[in-house]
């Protein structure tokens, strides 16, 4: 827990109702996001990283059957807010950049109209002209040339990279305290991805808020984030400052994920590392350590659930071996 935490998530558990019973999508997640920090959430499909992002926005799906714990934004518990109060926060204090800008942008409105609408909540007193001016300035800021022309364009008339820049501009126009980026570069080509990552770094340098960057790419996370939380099957299994985490990966799952990354410098023909087995059933969650069934270092004690323990300053891992 940092002193000046902007977002403090405590013991957050979320269940979804399904025909088979409750899916325990998140279990007792703790995460602290400091001001002006980029925090990476990394994990594979089913790890709960997107559920966590949606919970922050108050956009959990309708079949959410249980939410316990708290999400505090500067001391105010978002989970206790009424829907209209949450709506007030969204687009003012919390904004999101989605994975696929083509589906997040409305195809029948111009970029200008959408950028204006995005600011209404933040600047209810400003007129359309003023808001368009701000939109044009922000498009220039995110590296779109000829912003005037772009404002009257429709999403399909822009390239994928440009659409993602529009999404980022839209989020920044809300001047949020917390910006959530959910896999913002997966739909982009590598050379464009590098441009967007550079842009996020630039924004961070002059932005007073925090960024939560959700990704399955350890490479991207290592390049961009100050801190990382590694998630597995609804739990944070390891978290800490990026450097410490990559230097001393302490949870066997983090170690396995790192080992699975393909190192292009090794000899071709060597077998690639995989993690045997699959995700545990999140309806009937096994007792003990959640990773035990796939863990190469499993021993007797793993039948009890390990708590997060400190490996290095601010760096914790939930494993009996640390």
């Amino acid at each position, binding site marked *: 827990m940092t002193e000046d935490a902007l977002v403090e998530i405590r013991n957050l558990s979320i269940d979804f109702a399904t025909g088979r019973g409750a899916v325990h999508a998140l279990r007792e997640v703790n995460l602290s996001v400091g001001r002006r920090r980029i925090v990476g959430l990394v994990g*594979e*499909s089913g790890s709960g990283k997107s559920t966590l992002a949606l919970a922050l926005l108050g956009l959990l799906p309708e079949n959410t059957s249980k939410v316990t714990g708290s999400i505090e934004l500067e001391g105010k518990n978002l989970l206790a807010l009424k829907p209209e109060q949450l709506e007030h926060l969204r687009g003012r204090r919390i904004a999101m950049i989605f994975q696929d800008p083509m589906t997040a942008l409305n195809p029948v409105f111009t970029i200008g109209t959408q950028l204006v609408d995005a600011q209404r909540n933040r600047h209810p007193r400003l007129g359309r002209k003023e808001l368009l001016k701000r939109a044009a300035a922000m498009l220039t800021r995110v590296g779109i040339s000829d912003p005037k022309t772009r404002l009257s364009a429709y999403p399909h008339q822009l*390239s*994928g*990279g*440009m659409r993602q820049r529009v999404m980022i501009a839209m989020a920044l126009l809300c001047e949020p305290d917390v910006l959530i980026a959910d896999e913002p570069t997966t739909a982009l*080509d*590598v*050379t*464009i*991805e*590098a*441009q967007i*990552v*550079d842009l996020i770094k630039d924004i961070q340098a002059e932005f007073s808020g925090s960024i939560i960057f959700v990704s*399955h*790419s*350890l*490479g*991207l996370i*290592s*390049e961009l984030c100050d801190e990382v939380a590694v998630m597995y099957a609804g739990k944070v299994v390891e978290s800490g400052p*990026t*450097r410490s*985490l*990559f*230097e001393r990966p302490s949870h066997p799952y983090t170690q*396995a*994920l*790192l080992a*699975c*990354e*393909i*190192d*292009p410098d*090794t000899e*071709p*023909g060597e*077998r*690639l*590392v*995989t*993690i045997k087995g*699959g995700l545990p059933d999140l309806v009937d969650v096994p007792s003990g350590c959640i990773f035990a069934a796939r863990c190469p270092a499993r021993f007797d004690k793993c039948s009890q659930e390990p708590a997060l323990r400190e490996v290095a300053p601010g760096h914790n891992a939930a494993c009996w071996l640390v």
Partner: protein
Amino acid sequence: MAESKTIEVENISVTFAGGVQAVAGISLKLSVGETLGLVGESGSGKTTLAKALVGLNRPESGRVVVEGRDLTGLTRSDRLWLRQRVQMIFQDPLSSLSPRFTIRKLLAEPLAIHGLNAKERWPAVLDLMSRLGLAETQLDKFPHQVSGGQARRVAIARALVADPSFLIADEPTAGLDVSVQGELLNLLSDLQQRFSLGILIVSHNLNVIGRVTDRVAIMYLGKVVEEGPTREVFRAPKHPYTRALLSANPVIDPEHKRKKIVLSGEIPSPSKPPAGCRFHTRCPNVQPRCREEEPLLTEAENGRRYACHFPLESAA
């Protein structure tokens, strides 16, 4: 067989209605026992080229020669023969499998189509299944009843039951978690050795390409800009685009030691490729000559080829 077991692509171009030239004069060769990687960003024409190799796209000029047979002006029987020699696995395995067929039927269908004796062949099919880690108990399930990873294996099994010489894999690891990506790649290399396949892997994942291919061709806007043995191309790229691609590839680097080359600008539209060198609008080393004269793909040492007026010097 007297003919060489290769697929040879000779100067093919593929143009779509509307005048988009997706593939603009490409020559490549794939031999059995070899894995060739095809790398490029969206719109570079890599999938179009891959489809031309299985006869799904007709080139407007140039030739595709499979095991000595020219595919230009394919007849119906040629097509059937081609499908047996060259098989493709698609990006999304589930959508490439009929939801109304059981896995048994999905695997038997290619045998029937190619007039192979299913009874005689069935032990080989079962052997293939066990190599792929599919249990016989799954034969009577439908594709949606097995996991995504298993559906992918069924798609691979289906591609291999008729004993092809070549396998074209379009983004075989797209959408896979890293923990299972390695499993699929290990599988492909096992199958290659077992059946001495020639494999073409289309991917934008440079780590995958770097690890599993023998040779690599880098595409940009419908052209091959560089080709050669993967290790050498990755170690010392000659084309500035190859270098930029390799540099943009995210790697684990928490101390930020690596300096990236970030290309400016967007990928131009393939319907209006720039004059001269197609990469000149984004090239960090652009010279006046690049804007006017298109560089040709020229042969260099160690079986390498590249198309650049000012190739990069090997880093000392």
